[in-house]
């Protein structure tokens, strides 16, 4: 092992995770279906009046996105933890954090991006104003990677625990709050025709911070869980 090449390793992990996911296309749709279902519960529970729905729509869409990304978190590490792939990753000469980042990118493409793509459907259901749609989608596109990165840290610590799903939610939901505040805040401001640059910039800053630091923390967490 005379040279440690990061980029090929990163791309190999990315390609592996993507092709694994594409071989089970049925599972790909599950987080999206969950996302749409949660949002469709609100008109039934609260009210079908379009004015009420429009008022709560930014929050509902964001909470639904947050829960959908939380519930799809498990598949990031669970399978690879159980079949020993993660142990091989930990033994690889490349830093584990880089491989975790590759897995995170693949995970976002599989679970985060579809949420962004179907969000117009939710906007339609919730009577969210059409002209604010680009801002809503931009916010989701910046916010969902943060949710994934924070979730990866929580998951890395709980992946060894039996029935760790609920525990994962307890650990990461408080950490999700800033994303929710600025995400829903930007969607709300956009719906009332206000500028959202500030909120989107903050979401972007959080994404940059989370994607640089969370893989390190998740790698440390995985090493502890693999012990």
């Amino acid at each position, binding site marked *: 092992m005379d040279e440690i090449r990061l980029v090929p390793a990163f791309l190999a992990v990315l390609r592996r995770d993507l092709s694994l996911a594409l071989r089970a296309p049925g599972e790909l749709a599950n987080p999206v279906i969950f996302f749409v279902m949660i949002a469709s519960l609100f008109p039934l529970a609260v009210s079908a009046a379009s004015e009420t729905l429009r008022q709560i729509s930014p929050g509902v869409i964001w909470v639904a996105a947050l829960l959908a990304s939380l519930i799809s978190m498990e598949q990031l590490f669970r399978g690879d933890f159980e079949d020993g792939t993660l142990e091989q990753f930990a033994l690889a000469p490349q830093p584990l954090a880089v491989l975790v980042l590759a897995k995170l990118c693949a995970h976002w493409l599989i679970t985060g991006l579809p949420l962004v793509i179907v969000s117009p459907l939710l906007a339609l259901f919730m009577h969210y104003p059409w002209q604010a749609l680009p801002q809503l989608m931009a916010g989701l596109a910046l916010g969902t990677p943060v949710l994934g990165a924070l979730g990866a*840290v*929580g998951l*890395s*610590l*709980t992946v*060894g*625990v039996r029935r*760790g799903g609920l*525990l994962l939610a*307890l*650990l990461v*939901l*408080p*950490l999700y*709050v*800033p994303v929710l*505040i*600025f995400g829903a*805040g930007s969607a709300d401001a956009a719906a009332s025709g206000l500028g959202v640059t500030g909120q989107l910039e*903050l979401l972007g800053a*959080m994404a940059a911070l989370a994607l640089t*630091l969370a893989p390190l*923390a998740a790698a*440390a*967490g995985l090493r*502890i*869980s693999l*012990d």
Partner: protein
Amino acid sequence: MWTWFHRLGSPPYFYEWAGRWAPRIGVLAALLFAWGLYDGLVLAPTDYKQGESYRIIFIHVPAAWMSMMVYVTMAVSAAIGLIWRMKVAEVMARAAAPLGAWFTVLALVTGSLWGKPMWGTWWVWDARLTSELLLLFLYLGYIALNAAIEEPRQAARASAVLAVVGVVNIPIIHFSVEWWNTLHQGPTVTRLDAPAINIAMFLPLITMALAFMAYFAAVWLMRARGELLERERRSRWVQRVVAEESG
């Protein structure tokens, strides 16, 4: 200085040292509580706007300070345990968590009791209340993770990572909640210029804060001793301690 620190890293030495100091600090805490409560509840003047009910700040504000300080203390101990694999530091972090969680509950409950006469409601989604509630959730997550992993060293290391991640996140959570909504009065003591509080109210407040700190230190050391005995129950020094205690 460093030899002293290194010696504290040895469980039997720490156990004995904490056993000597915990009661002394406990007495100090009792004295400070007695003086602080008398000064705050009897001697301090009545507030011209809030009347007598402002006196709850002598419990509420120190509890809120402690809730944050204990989290940082816990995260620092956890990080020391994680980096240098110091068993005593791991035990200290674990012992601090329930105390911090209770300080947070105390701050929330007293704040709510104060909010009823002042704001006319038990609970508002105000920035500081919300971040205090989220802090409680962080504590509960830490405790839950610690309890979920059976192997004590692995539990300590995993929850240490969580505590450190939490410390990085606390300022982000705090400021995002701050910008989101605010009704709570701004900080009156921790300002860079002179405190915006009457000196006759400030002194009991500081006394109470010191009392809370001493109480925390005493109970923390005692809890750490208990944790240590349980974790090291198979080692020879614990068996010797047990033999001595039971005569």
